[in-house]
């Protein structure tokens, strides 16, 4: 015989659901804040104390990559605007700055695909400095199941 669904268990279930629902925005907010910190730290060597604004930059990385020695990464911009330069940072590599790209008059779009060697699972940061001097950035996480042999013992 199945247990009857009483008012008490229904209320408990409802409360649990509400709590979960109320929690998720807070979690999302905390994540955004930590991403902002990661981006600020990653970009300080390139842009100094310039404020880093989230957005405008598109970054495509695989969610999971089997081999860290060659991970395809694409960067681009949300609109047709051409940045002065774009950078990619592999935040957990021994030397994080991966590339700085300056586009010339013959580039059709601010869009580049390349391959990175990643020591371990980490956050990739891509940033663009616009002609007006503002810096925009986006980050994405990639999980590496087998890291690149970057240092002895890894």
């Amino acid at each position, binding site marked *: 015989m199945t247990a009857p669904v009483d008012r008490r268990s229904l209320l408990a279930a409802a409360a649990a659901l509400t709590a979960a629902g109320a929690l998720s925005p807070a979690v999302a907010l905390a994540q955004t804040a930590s991403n902002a910190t990661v981006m600020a730290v990653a970009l300080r060597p390139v842009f100094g104390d310039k404020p880093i604004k989230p957005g405008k930059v598109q970054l495509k990385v695989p969610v999971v990559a089997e081999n860290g*020695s*060659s*991970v395809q990464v694409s960067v681009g911009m949300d609109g047709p605007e051409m940045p002065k330069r774009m950078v*990619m940072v*592999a935040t957990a*590599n*021994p*030397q*994080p*700055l*991966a*590339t*700085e*790209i*300056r*586009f*010339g*008059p*013959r*580039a*059709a*779009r601010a*869009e*580049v*695909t*390349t*391959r*990175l*060697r*990643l020591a371990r699972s980490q956050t990739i940061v891509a940033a663009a400095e616009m002609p007006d001097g503002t810096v925009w950035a986006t980050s994405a996480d990639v999980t590496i199941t087998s890291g690149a*042999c*970057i*240092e*002895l013992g890894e």
Partner: protein
Amino acid sequence: MKVLVSVPAVVRRGEAFEVKAMAMHVMENGFRRDMDGKAVPRKILNHFTCRYNGEIVLDCDWHTPISANPYMSFAVKAVDSGTLTFEWIDDDGSIERHSAPITVT
């Protein structure tokens, strides 16, 4: 050094076309040690430039997180028939150049 470059033979004026370039290079990052525990000296391609009839398409600094056999693909604006030139600069100072013809109709 061997390089592989992919450029369409014919493109239409005003259109964007994709170019892919890969160089065969170990990109030794300088953080690794050999069997005897000695540090393997860094030797990477640290600079890559693509020009179209002399005008820059893109000009990049490369650092150690760029993978072995470094690859880049990007979009170029078709202007006039001519030549795309590619240039890779090695840590040892050597420069590798490659060019590909392009016809714009």
